[in-house]
């Protein structure tokens, strides 16, 4: 599934981030994001993995190193999903999904088809008129994903999107996300602190250690897509989960020694 020949969409070289209070969040980070891959950034909290996502999105700027895009257009061809659904509570699901189109100047009527398509992609066709309050946590997250996908971005950035959900909902959304990725061919960067989630979803995992945040290991998951629940019981899944756990443990151990 991973395409090693194509040039990366975005290339990070020697990227560092030092906050105003002197905290070194990231140091000397090298990372290539390849077209079509599902890349997970796995690490303990506070290792700067969310900061990497924010820098790629252009919401924060690196204090060292460079972030290079394969072409200028890709840079703004993004969707972003936050840990909580981050919906506007005062308006309907339809209007929430409309937001990215509205900000680019598309009227409600012109956007309607694309909004309905995005909602049907995440299985929420009947809920356009509902308000966020009336939905469950998992449904709100689906709306958030629909909003991120409504512009059909080339790159989807997800910052621990399912961390606040119960495990059953999370499994369901994991499968939905894989289906959407296959349907749309989107490249995904997925921040998580769950080993099992990252192994199940990813074609590649970058394992982070903290203080300062850095990548200590990269694990390829060369199982073909589409994946389903059977994959959770496969030998490859067990083996890669062990490898990712070991890498994560050594990341945490390195932190304890400091």
């Amino acid at each position, binding site marked *: 599934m991973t395409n090693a020949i194509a040039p990366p969409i975005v290339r990070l070289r020697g990227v560092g981030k030092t906050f105003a209070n002197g905290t070194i969040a990231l140091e000397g980070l090298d990372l290539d994001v390849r077209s079509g891959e599902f890349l997970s950034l796995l690490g303990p909290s506070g290792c700067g993995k969310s900061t990497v996502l*924010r820098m790629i*999105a*252009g*919401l924060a700027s690196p204090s060292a190193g460079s972030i290079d895009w394969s072409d200028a257009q890709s840079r*703004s061809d*993004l969707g*972003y999903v*936050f840990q*909580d659904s*981050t919906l*506007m*509570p*005062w*308006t309907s699901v339809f209007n929430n999904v409309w*937001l*990215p189109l*509205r*900000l*680019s100047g598309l009227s409600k009527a012109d956007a309607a088809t694309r909004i309905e398509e995005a909602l049907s992609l995440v299985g929420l066709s009947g809920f356009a008129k509902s*308000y*966020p*309050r009336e939905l469950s946590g998992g449904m709100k997250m689906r709306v958030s994903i629909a909003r991120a996908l409504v512009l059909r971005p080339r790159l989807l950035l997800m910052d621990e999107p399912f961390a606040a959900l119960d495990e059953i909902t999370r499994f369901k959304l994991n499968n939905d996300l894989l289906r959407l990725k296959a349907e749309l061919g989107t490249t995904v960067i997925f921040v998580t602190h769950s080993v099992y989630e990252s192994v199940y979803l990813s074609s590649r995992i970058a394992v982070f250690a903290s203080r300062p945040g850095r990548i200590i290991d990269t694990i390829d998951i060369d199982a073909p897509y589409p994946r389903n629940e059977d994959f959770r019981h496969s030998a490859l899944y067990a083996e890669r989960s062990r490898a990712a756990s070991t890498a994560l443990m050594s990341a945490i151990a390195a932190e304890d020694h400091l």
Partner: protein
Amino acid sequence: MSAQSRPAIAMNAERALDIALPVCVFLGALGVWEAIVALKDIPPYILPAPSRIASTLIADWDTLSGSLWVTLRITFAALFAAVVGGVALAILFAQWKWVERSFFPFAVILQVTPIVAIAPLLLVYLDGGTAVLVCAFVVAFFPILSNTALGLASADHNLLDLFELYRASRWQQLIYLRLPSALPYFLGGLRIGGGLALIGAIVAEIAAGSAGQGAGLAFRIVESGYRLNIPRMFAALVLISVAGILIFLFFTLLSRVLLGRWHDSARSREG
């Protein structure tokens, strides 16, 4: 069906009690008052009985309703000006930080200086009606300004990031994000400001009334005091209270209508 309606009945009973209890206390107090006045044979120019106040209210309705109208007109004109001014300034604060840094201290000074102290000074420079209006405006202005400014600054940070990601302009951010986020705060300010506008109008009328100006309810109170028409003083006081309560209820209802579908403040907790 019956399983669902039983808690609903219990809830309605609770709500009915919320109304019934204070009403009982109120009627009880009126009864005691009436009885004391009757038993001790207190003359109305010392303490009028509630029945006497009620009959005065009806007998003097033409004069009192005219004054009520004057006071309400000033209250709402001042409140309207405070909403326009407060919201406009809060938007300027949100869009340009230096405006906030330049002007906010003066808004605070205006707020902390007692209106009773400002009113006589305003009467020197302005005619009575305008001075009363300005006083009511001054007290209603600050809660609307500060609440709206707080609301505009309280937009969800992730949503602000999202707007930045999609390259929204400052004005798109204001209209689609900051203004809706500020609505609950604004309505809270409006509820406080509505009551304060009435108080400001009354205080200024009393100050102006002593200078021989105005014909609002406060003027009627001062005038009745001079004439020892104590029942009419009470009647005017009743009208002021009722007006204050109605203003509060009106804005509470407005909040509930505008926020009903999305804001926690307007919804009962589930379960």
